[in-house]
């Protein structure tokens, strides 16, 4: 094999892989093992099997995920089609807007629908389903739209000239050809909604718990740790089986299309076409902006009328006594709203640093290892297939007894976040690292660079941009992480999502308004971080 000559020294590769191996073993595998150990007692298994309530929970979790998925696909196909087929002013902006909900933290999405919907719908299944569709439509637009724009339009034209009506051509040609992307998107949406936690905590009320919420409730509220552990392990198994099953289905639907990038977008020609395009665009903009606008509006609504009282009380401009508000006083507020912002920022920066170092090293090691890097790659991806609650629950179980009684350690939260963010860091870096032509390294070597020097001059230089993107994503992920944090958080050190949930689930108009203030802040932070990353990427693309 060529290229071997200028490889990195084996010892360096091992040193790069080591942090990730230790990290995964200690903060993922061990916690999962602790969960399993807790779960495999006869008593807890028996308790689960005899619990009628749990059957209802499992049933609700399953059907709400199914309905959410079907609705998301059905609704998502419309913007996917529009953005893949039509050219119009503002198309790029609309594409960006459609992806906004997906980068929002789940707690923010929950808060937005709490703000938008009338009280009668607040704590209902409808609210959950709406929020799930809002959150996941981007998956369909990206996944299905990406394939759709590569389907030659003449395939549909061919069906039409053979006597198929537009609807029939859609059913017989377009949908079957999009099937792989539809199945892929559907399985992602299903997994997301099956393990939905933040949205359900805010919108479900006590009557509609998903499995995630039930695990959390048993573990933290009811002290039913054994049953919670059994449920966690059961959910891990369900997710594992689902992932394997979904990939089977997808493999069966793969059609070798020999597709290549096409741009067949065209402007609407007839009047009717123009009106439809405009109407759909308007509907998309309204559907995405309304919940966010409602969030901002509710942050300014306290008792009667619109004031900035909640904003002032959060940012300490004025004490509430100067702005008397019905049903609320900050004096006995259980949540340090302003403190949660600084806590979140601090946690996010630490989590970002951890995931960049560990994920970055691991990505370099995986790229250098070639085929044998697969095991490490898979190991790092594991947390991605694990629900957030399971991660948090496992961590707290593993680290609550000597030798590692770290429950009080402030590092546990950023570590949990880094576990979730590291897979993204690796995924963002690997394509770039793998695309680097080995000849470049050979050229550097022939010019007198040692393998390490060549690696520094080439690999490291090329990965600056994806590293920056990864940093942004890691920040955003940590800022919005809720499921794992609920287990790891301690009184007085709540992160933003935790504070938002606490404020919104307590009675009191001012507390609610403060919750909406924090949700608005968190939404702005997240959109700002991702927006900055995207803008920077676009900027350096243009320069390149």
């Amino acid at each position, binding site marked *: 094999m060529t290229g071997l000559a200028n490889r990195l020294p084996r010892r360096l590769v091992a040193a790069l892989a080591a942090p990730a191996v230790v990290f995964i073993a200690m903060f993922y595998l061990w916690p999962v093992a602790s969960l399993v150990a807790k779960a495999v007692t006869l008593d807890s298994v028996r308790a689960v099997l005899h619990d009628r309530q749990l059957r209802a929970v499992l049933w609700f979790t399953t059907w709400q995920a199914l309905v959410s998925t079907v609705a998301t696909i059905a609704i998502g196909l419309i913007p996917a089609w529009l953005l893949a087929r039509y050219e119009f002013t503002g198309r790029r902006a609309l594409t960006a807007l459609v992806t906004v909900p997906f980068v929002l933290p789940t707690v923010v999405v929950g808060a937005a629908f709490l703000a938008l919907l009338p009280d009668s719908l607040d704590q209902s299944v409808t609210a959950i389903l709406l929020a799930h569709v809002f959150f996941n439509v981007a998956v369909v637009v990206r996944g299905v739209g990406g394939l759709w724009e590569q389907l030659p339009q003449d395939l549909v034209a*061919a*069906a039409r*000239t*053979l*006597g*198929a*009506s*537009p609807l*029939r051509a859609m059913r017989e*040609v377009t949908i079957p050809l999009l099937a792989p992307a539809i199945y892929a998107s559907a399985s992602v949406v299903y997994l997301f909604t099956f393990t939905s936690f933040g949205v359900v905590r805010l919108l479900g009320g006590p009557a509609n718990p998903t499995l995630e919420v039930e695990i959390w409730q048993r573990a933290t509220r009811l002290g039913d740790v054994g049953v919670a552990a059994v449920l966690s392990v059961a959910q891990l198994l369900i997710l594992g089986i689902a992932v394997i099953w979904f990939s089977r289905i997808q493999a069966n639907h793969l059609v070798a299309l020999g597709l290549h990038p096409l741009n067949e977008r065209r402007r609407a020609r007839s009047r009717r076409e123009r009106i439809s395009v405009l109407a759909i665009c308007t509907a998309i903009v309204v559907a995405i902006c309304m919940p966010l606008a409602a969030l901002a509006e509710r942050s300014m609504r306290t008792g009667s009328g619109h004031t900035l009282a909640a904003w002032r009380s959060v940012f300490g401009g004025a004490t509430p006594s100067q702005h008397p508000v019905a049903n609320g006083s900050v004096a006995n507020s259980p949540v340090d709203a302003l403190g949660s912002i600084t806590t979140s920022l601090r946690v996010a920066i630490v989590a970002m640093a951890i995931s960049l170092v560990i994920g970055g090293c691991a990505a370099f090691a995986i790229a250098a290892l070639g085929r044998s890097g697969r095991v490490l790659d898979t190991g790092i991806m594991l947390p991605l297939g694990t629900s957030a609650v399971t991660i948090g629950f496992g961590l707290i179980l593993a680290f609550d007894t000597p030798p590692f009684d770290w429950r009080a350690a402030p590092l546990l939260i950023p570590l949990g976040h880094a576990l979730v963010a590291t897979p993204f860091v690796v995924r963002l870096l690997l394509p770039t690292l793998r695309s680097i032509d080995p000849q470049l390294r050979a050229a550097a070597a022939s010019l007198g660079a040692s393998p390490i020097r060549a690696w520094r001059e080439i690999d490291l230089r090329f990965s600056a941009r994806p590293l920056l993107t990864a940093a942004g994503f890691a920040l955003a992920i940590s800022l919005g992480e809720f499921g794992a944090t609920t287990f790891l958080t301690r009184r007085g050190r709540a992160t933003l999502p935790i504070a938002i949930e606490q404020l919104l689930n307590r009675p009191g108009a001012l507390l609610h308004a403060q919750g909406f203030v924090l949700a608005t802040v968190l939404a702005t932070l997240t959109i700002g971080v991702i927006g900055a990353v995207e803008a920077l990427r676009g900027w350096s693309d243009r320069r390149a």
Partner: protein
Amino acid sequence: MTVRFADRVVLADTSLTVADGEVVALLGPSGSGKSTLLRVISGLLVPDSGDILVDGVVITALPTHRRSIGFVFQDEQLFPHRSVAANVEFGLRMSGWTKARRAERRNELLALVGLDGFADRRVTDLSGGEAKRVALARTLAPSPRIVLLDEPLTGLDRDLHDQLAAEVAKLLRATGTTALVVTHDRDEAAIIDDRVVALADL
């Protein structure tokens, strides 16, 4: 008729008449609007002004799938998720033929284009020439009133090209099909067609 894309006039006051059973070649350099004309005739594109008449009846407002006008695309556009048989039978299925009659007609067509025994093949495994033949069979199967061929033989090497051109000519005569063939190749036009029309002359 006239067709505009944004501000660009692609076809300006163009007019063409084709007799029943005639095979006409439409010759012109690329960008002269040949393909656009075919798309207007098949209803895939709505003209800004003008009308299309078949047998004296105006069909301009008729949607594509009710026109019974076949179309052979430049790059075949076979349905990649369906077998050769399902591709050829597609039009028959759209007009409600029974399964048995479909199979019969499909075999007849496959024999006509020299692809006996290809029914169960995947279209993604076909050679360039075979794909062209399947496309032709698929278009002819439902016996359309008119067949439009958009540069049907591009992308083939010279020998195969000439051989297929002769076969297409024979096929169109044998089925008594009224056809309009767009090409930029004068020799090809001479082989296939009764009459050659240069688009610039319209």
